[in-house]
Structures are given as structure tokens and as C-alpha cells.
């Protein structure tokens, strides 16, 4: 197995250009003889499939939904970053690079992040050419908004549906190639294993989710674009089907898994309302452009609110604690996500939470509505507009910006956020950790690549808002399609890979036996029973704050839960039909292993950085305390048969361009 970052030589700003100039290419005639499998059709997989097909490779794409357009990327709301500097506010490739390294708390690879910033501008050009209807200003040019952790406006958006529009763009590019016969699309298929031949990734085993048939698919390279593993917590903002199976199976076959404990807990989500809760809903970070976050200053007000005797709108300005503005005057409500989440937890733990569970803070738009209303009245030539008129005008502006989010909130909570502040609380949202990849996005299995949220590459210990969409599309449109050629140039004479090889037979047999086990087990508990239990352990002991004792307990408890699962899980129905419970069983089985490695990784990292907050390592003011001497590395885990015995490999991170500093947003 190879474990070198393969970062090109030379100055950062020339690395990608030089690398592209030096790597091997496959000529167009030979590409026709080469097959590539792409697992996943989100922004990363969709864009990669389309581009690989366009370059001439034969692509086979897989997703578990009934259409590539339904991949989880569709749900991204707020926007996508790009260093276009259209606002003339001093943005540049360097600044985007720097913000991302700093935002990630100095735990990502400089070379990858610089390349990401470099290609970011191209993404916007590409998407506009595809007909993505980004928001525009009255002059007809593209509009921008701001996201957390930065001081420029570089986020492009399409109302609150940016992910949807970008994914439909990638999907349309895929459709064009499906129509040409260059992409063969496998909807409602789930990859259940990767197949290695002579140490190289040469195919996958997938289950047709409609007929239950187990299929062998071969290729010269396999690309994993299956998204993140946030659902290890059961409750997260991810789609119900989001899972780690493709990534985890790849890990078990030899791909190192990096930084599993780096998880993003997003500060602004709708709080949970009961035990039956099946998932959590995000309220986009873009809302923090205009919303102010607060809790009451006085405990008696908190009590009155919880008892339903007081409304938040009745609390005067002096009695409100705008704690982010208080603690972080420079960035205020737009501090990065990890900082905002911990601050909310701190207030709620101290007893200031504003709903029945004590786990909610306010996100208030009244100041913004008034400010916009006044501005609009000026523009309209109504300087003497009444208060009602100002509010009416202001609400219109806010509606144009965030209308669909407000609507979504009202549907779920049954309260009108134009009239009363939203209630929000942090929730699991994104996983920075993932399959380890080198500069070429190749995993430690030759010929196996990982892109998008499934890899660990660019966000260090904390991802900045609007950067996941950027990374997914950068990987898929502009990076992987070129770096993969370097590897495939050795395969021009290989010819078709046969699925009759013993390696395929063996992998298929393993998959089949596992499925047979599930449907024959006739145990006592449903899959969800185990998933919820796992989620609770993860949230309580590997959540927003962690400590050594809790992590050790978590490892033990997860191990016991896993043993119980393999004895007592109950899966109704059969293997050869559409069987959602069987799908879930396989996914939860993998989460039950991943969770343990997660806890172990968190235990190993005796520092606080980004989303990984160890209670033992904090400053007097409660800020994260990094240990650059000991932990400036990527923790890449090698599977050896049991998560408990995985071997830790360290990729040391070298910072040549950026000086390591304590992250400060004060």
C-alpha cells in the first residue's frame, strides 16, 4: 500500500500547473478501451462521471436513489465559494487558500487546498455555461453573500437551493453523456464491496435494490464519491440514506481512513422535538448574515419562556445576551461553525436554553427586517414611512433572500420566523474525515480514488461554509479527470477486466453470505433500534465536547452494541426483492465499526482543533487549544481486522506558506 502525499515540488502557486504538464495522459483512442466506475452521483461523482465520459472513458455510475439528481448534494442550501473577487473586496486565490487553511485549524495539506482555491473560479464559469441560475443583481451580474469565518463576500448562491441547482447542472452534463452512451447509469444500486485484483482496484460488487440481484462490475479504476458518514450519529442533517458503506468497505480492503473524529456540528439547525425524530433540518449558515443569535441574560426570563409565560419579543434589548457578538466582536455572528456551535452549547449547558429541552438559542431577524425596511423606504422615496410600512418593506427583502428557509422552518416548527425569532441548536452536519487520498486523489489502494465528502482532503479539522460544494465540483470537474489519466496510462493494453476472476467470485460470495445472515437471523430488535443506540453513544461521548474517559466508554459500548447487533438484529423480508430494512442493516453494520474507530481517533488526538474539542485541552476562556508540536499530522488508519487494532500512520503536515497561529476570531 502506498502512503505518500505525492505533493509536487516547487512553489505552491506553480504546483498544479507543473503537475498537469508532467503527468502522463491517455490518448483519445485509448480512452475508449478504458472503463471507470464511479460510485455516487452527488456533486463530486456527478461532475466526475460527466467529465470522464466527455474525455472519452467508458463510465459506469452508481447511486442508491432512483435518479442521480436525488443525491444528498441536492439539499445544500447556502452557497458555493469561489475566489472571483467580483465584489472587489480584496479576495484572491491566496486569501481563499489562507482562509481555508486557517478555518481548518491548520490540519489540512497546503498543496491540496491551494489547488482548490486555484480552480474555484473556473467552477462558477462552468456552472453558468451549463445554465445554473445563480442569483444576480439588477445590473445582470452575479451576486454574492458572506459565509462564516471570512471577511470577504465570495459565496455564489441560487436562493436557498444552491446545491439543487449545482447538482441539476452536473446531472444535465451526465444526461448528455448517458444519451451518447458514454455513461451507463445504474440507479437504485448499492455498492457493497470493492474488488482488488493483483492489489489494484478492478471493480465492485453491487446489489440491484429493485430485484435484489447481486452484480459484479469490472473497470480499470474505481472512484468512490459516496458522501460523508454523519449518519453514524443517527440524527444528522444528512439524507436518510446517506451512509459510509462504500467508503468503509474500501477501507476494509486496504484504503486508509483519515481523521475519522473530525466532524462538523453545524450551529444553526432546528432543535429536536421528540424521541420519534428521524433526522434534523439545517437552517443555512447564510442566515447568520442577517440573523443575530442570543439567549436571555436572566435566568428568570429563561424560566418564564420555558413555561410559556413570556415571549422572546417581549424581552428588552438590555436583557438579551448576544453572546457571539459579545465574545467575538471582530466576526460576531459570522464566526466559523465549530466556534458558534460550542458557544451555543456553553450557553445551554449554563442553563440559558430557550425551549423545553433546554437545547435551543434564538436566531433573530428583527434588526435585519428593520434595517432593510428603512433602506428600502429610502430607495422608494418614502422617508416618512410608518413603522408598519418599514417592517412590511423589510420583510419583503428578507423573504427574497431567505423565503424558502423561513417557509421550511414554519412547516416544521409551526411558528412564523418573520414575527418571532427562530429557535436553533447545533446538529451533526458534515464529516471532514474520510478516506485518505494523495495529491492525485488516489487512496492507498492503487487505482481506487475518493472524491467529495468521502475523502478527507481539504478541510482539515473544520470546514468553512460553502466550501463542500466547491470541493466536490473541483474534484469532479477539474482534478480527478486529469490525475486519473496518469494511472490509467499504464492500462491502455490491459483490455477488459473479466468479472469471472476468482477475486470477483470471492467478494461476491462474502457479500451474499452477509445478506443471507441478515434475512435469516430472525432476531429481536429492528435495525433502527441499534442505529438509535449507536447515535446516542456518539452524540453523548463523541459529540461537541469529548474527554478521554467518555471516549474509552464509547469504544467499549460500541463494541458491545455491535456484538449484540450481530446476534439479535431482525431484518424482515427476503434478499431478492426491494427491501429497505436489508439496506439499512448493512449500513448500520458498517457504522457500528466506524463509530469505534472514530472514538479511538478522538482519544488518540490529545489536543483540541476545529470540530474536535477535547475538554482536557482548552484555554482559560474555553477556546480550543491545539498542540502543534505533537499533532500536526493526518491520522491515517489501516484496517487489520478489527477497529480496535487498526494501525495508525501519520502523514506529517508541512506548512511552508502559512504560519501556524492560534485561530482568533475576536
Amino acid at each position, binding site marked *: 500500500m502506498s502512503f505518500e502525499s505525492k505533493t509536487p515540488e516547487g512553489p505552491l502557486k506553480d504546483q498544479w500547473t507543473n503537475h498537469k504538464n508532467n503527468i502522463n495522459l491517455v490518448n483519445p483512442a485509448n480512452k475508449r478501451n478504458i472503463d471507470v466506475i464511479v460510485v455516487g452521483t452527488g456533486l463530486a461523482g456527478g461532475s466526475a462521471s460527466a467529465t470522464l465520459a466527455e474525455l472519452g472513458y467508458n463510465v459506469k455510475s452508481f447511486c442508491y436513489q432512483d435518479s442521480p439528481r436525488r443525491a444528498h448534494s441536492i439539499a445544500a442550501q447556502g452557497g458555493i465559494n469561489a475566489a472571483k473577487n467580483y465584489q472587489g473586496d480584496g479576495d484572491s486565490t491566496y486569501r481563499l487558500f489562507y482562509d481555508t487553511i486557517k478555518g481548518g485549524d491548520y490540519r489540512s495539506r497546503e498543496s491540496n487546498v491551494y489547488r482548490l482555491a486555484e480552480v474555484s473560479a473556473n467552477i462558477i464559469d462552468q456552472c453558468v455555461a451549463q445554465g445554473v*441560475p445563480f442569483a444576480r443583481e439588477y445590473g445582470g451580474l452575479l451576486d454574492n453573500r458572506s459565509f462564516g469565518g471570512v471577511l470577504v463576500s465570495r459565496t455564489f448562491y441560487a436562493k436557498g437551493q444552491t446545491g439543487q441547482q449545482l447538482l441539476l447542472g452536473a446531472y444535465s452534463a451526465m444526461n448528455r453523456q448517458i444519451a451518447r452512451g458514454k455513461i451507463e447509469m445504474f440507479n437504485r444500486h448499492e455498492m457493497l464491496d470493492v474488488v482488488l485484483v493483483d492489489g489494484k482496484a478492478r471493480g465492485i460488487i453491487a446489489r440491484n435494490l429493485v430485484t435484489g440481484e447481486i452484480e459484479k462490475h469490472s473497470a480499470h479504476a474505481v472512484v468512490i464519491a459516496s458522501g460523508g458518514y454523519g449518519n453514524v450519529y443517527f440524527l444528522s442533517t444528512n439524507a436518510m440514506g446517506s451512509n459510509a458503506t462504500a467508503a468503509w468497505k474500501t477501507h476494509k480492503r486496504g484504503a486508509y481512513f483519515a481523521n475519522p473524529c473530525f466532524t462538523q456540528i453545524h450551529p444553526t439547525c432546528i432543535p429536536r422535538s421528540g424521541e420519534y425524530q428521524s433526522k434534523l433540518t439545517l437552517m443555512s449558515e447564510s442566515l447568520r448574515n442577517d440573523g443575530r443569535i442570543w439567549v436571555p441574560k436572566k435566568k428568570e426570563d429563561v424560566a418564564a419562556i420555558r413555561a410559556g409565560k413570556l415571549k422572546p419579543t417581549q424581552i428588552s434589548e438590555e436583557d438579551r445576551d448576544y453572546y457571539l457578538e459579545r465574545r467575538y466582536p471582530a466576526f460576531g455572528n459570522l464566526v466559523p461553525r465549530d466556534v458558534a456551535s460550542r458557544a451555543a452549547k456553553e450557553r445551554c449547558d449554563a442553563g440559558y436554553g430557550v425551549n423545553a429541552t433546554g437545547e435551543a438559542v434564538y436566531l433573530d431577524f428583527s434588526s435585519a427586517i428593520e434595517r432593510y425596511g428603512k433602506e428600502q423606504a429610502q430607495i422608494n422615496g418614502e422617508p416618512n414611512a410608518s413603522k408598519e410600512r418599514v417592517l412590511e418593506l423589510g420583510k419583503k427583502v428578507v423573504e427574497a433572500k431567505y423565503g424558502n428557509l423561513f417557509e421550511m422552518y414554519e412547516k416544521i416548527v409551526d411558528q412564523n420566523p418573520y414575527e418571532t425569532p427562530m429557535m436553533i441548536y447545533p446538529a451533526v452536519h458534515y464529516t471532514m474525515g474520510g478516506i485518505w487520498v494523495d495529491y492525485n486523489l488516489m487512496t492507498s489502494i492503487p487505482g481506487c480514488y475518493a472524491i467529495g465528502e468521502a475523502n478527507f482532503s481539504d478541510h482539515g479539522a473544520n470546514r468553512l461554509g460553502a466550501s463542500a460544494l466547491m470541493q466536490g465540483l473541483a474534484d469532479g470537474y477539474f482534478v480527478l479527470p486529469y490525475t486519473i489519466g496518469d494511472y490509467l496510462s499504464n492500462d491502455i493494453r490491459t483490455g477488459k477486466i473479466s468479472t469471472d476472476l476468482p477475486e470477483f467470485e470471492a467478494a461476491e460470495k462474502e457479500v451474499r453470505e452477509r445478506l443471507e445472515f441478515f434475512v435469516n437471523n430472525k432476531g429481536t430488535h429492528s435495525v433502527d433500534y441499534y442505529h438509535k443506540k449507536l447515535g446516542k453513544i456518539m452524540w453523548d461521548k463523541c459529540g461537541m465536547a469529548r474527554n478521554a474517559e467518555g471516549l474509552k466508554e464509547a469504544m467499549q459500548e460500541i463494541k458491545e452494541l455491535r456484538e449484540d447487533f450481530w446476534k439479535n438484529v431482525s431484518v424482515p*423480508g427476503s434478499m431478492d426483492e426491494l427491501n429497505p430494512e436489508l439496506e439499512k442493516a448493512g449500513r448500520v453494520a458498517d457504522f457500528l465499526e466506524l463509530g469505534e474507530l472514530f472514538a479511538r481517533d478522538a482519544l488518540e488526538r490529545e489536543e483540541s482543533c476545529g470540530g474536535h474539542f477535547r475538554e482536557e485541552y482548552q484555554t482559560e476562556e474555553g477556546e480550543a487549544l491545539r498542540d502543534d508540536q505533537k499533532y500536526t499530522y493526518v491520522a491515517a488508519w489501516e484496517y487489520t481486522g478489527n477497529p480496535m487494532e487498526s494501525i495508525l500512520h501519520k502523514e506529517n503536515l508541512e506548512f511552508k506558506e502559512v504560519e501556524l497561529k492560534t485561530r482568533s476570531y475576536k
Partner: protein
Amino acid sequence: MNLTLKIWRQKGPKDKGKIVDYKVNDISEHMSFLEMMDVLNEQLINSGEDPVAFDHDCREGICGSCSMFINGRAHGPAEGTTTCQLHMRSFSDGDTIYIEPFRANAFPVIKDLVVDRSAFERIQQAGGYISVNTSGNTQDANAIPIPKEDADMAMDAATCIGCGACVATCKNASAMLFVGAKISQYALLPQGRVEAEKRAKNMVAQMDAEGFGNCTNTGACEVECPKGISLSNIARMNREFLTANLKK
């Protein structure tokens, strides 16, 4: 609240299928409709029965997976709402709720409430794109200014989630609202104009080939569309289609 559910059960495409009654108790008004279905399924699993299969993924109204016909209405009683965004506060204690799949000849049932909407895929493949390579070597994004009104209208059309409620609602099982939305999104943008007519012709031809019905302007689709896609998109599609055919 306690409810009686009358649910369409169908083992597979060839099975005839029938309505089966179930009871669920202690349902909270804050639950989403699909969380209520989770409760039912947990109940069925624990009593050794086969749970009800239904499509769902994002559970926040954007992926277009969920597709239930509830009390005779696509996505249920609330307007501008997908099945997954429907909450139990729209129902009352003691209610009987009918739950069926989205029905149309072009959407055959796979199992229970899950239908095959791949006809929509093939329509998109017939022309739902702008023929531009993904090389990134395009002109600068701000090179073509686009009037905000046009961009906003294109965006409104582009918010279609491809759920198929319009088809399930229409007495003719027409897919015009879905196809009209896609054609409009591109027709409204200068990048999409170049191929606008060809696109309209090809997508409409595919729509007909899939066995969707004709549009007789009843407008039920617009009412039931969870994303408020406007009928004006159908009119625009017809214009594009007519011009394309006149030039033939």
C-alpha cells in the same frame, strides 16, 4: 392522536395489490408524516410483518423522492408541501387516512408505495441540458449579463424537484408541467437559447413515447405541485415546440 391507516400494499410489479388497514396510536402532532410511517413500520417489524416500502431520502422537501397520494391528493392536504414536509398537525385524532402510490401508466408500481419514475430520466436525457463541455474553458461567468427578472424566472422553473406529483394528479397523467419547467429554465437564459427549439422537440417526443397523456388545461398540476411551478411554463414550452415545428 390515534389513527386508522388504509395503505396500498403490493408485493411487486406483477402482484395485484390491495388496501390494508392498520392502526397507529399516540401519534404526536409534531411528527412528520413519514415519522408516523416509521412508527407504523417499527410496529410491523416487531410483530414479524413486512414493513411498508416507500421512497424518501432528504426529508426536507428537496430531493423529490417521497411520493405518497394521501386522502386522494398528491403529497396530501397541505399546499406547497411534499409528503416528507407534511406534519401530523394537519390531521385529527380518530382520522382515517388513505395512503396510495403516485399512479400513472408511465409510473409502474415497484412495491407498495414505491413507483418507477425512470420515464422522467429518459425525458431529461433526450435534451434536458446545454451542450457545453465541462472543461472549465468557458468564458468568464460575468461575460454575459442576464437581466435579474429572467434569471429569477429561470430559477423559479428550475426549482422543480422531479417528484411526479403533477403526473399523479392529472386526470390525463400528463407530464407537461415537469417538462415545461425544464424547457423554460433553459429557454429563459441566453446560454440555453441556442438549442431551445431542438430541446423542446426532443423532450416532447420522448414524453409522448413514454406514454404520458395530453394536457387539457385543467391546471390541477399547478395546484398540487409542491414547488409552485407555474402553468406559464407549459405555455412557454408550447411556444418553443410550435416554433420548432413551424421551421421544420
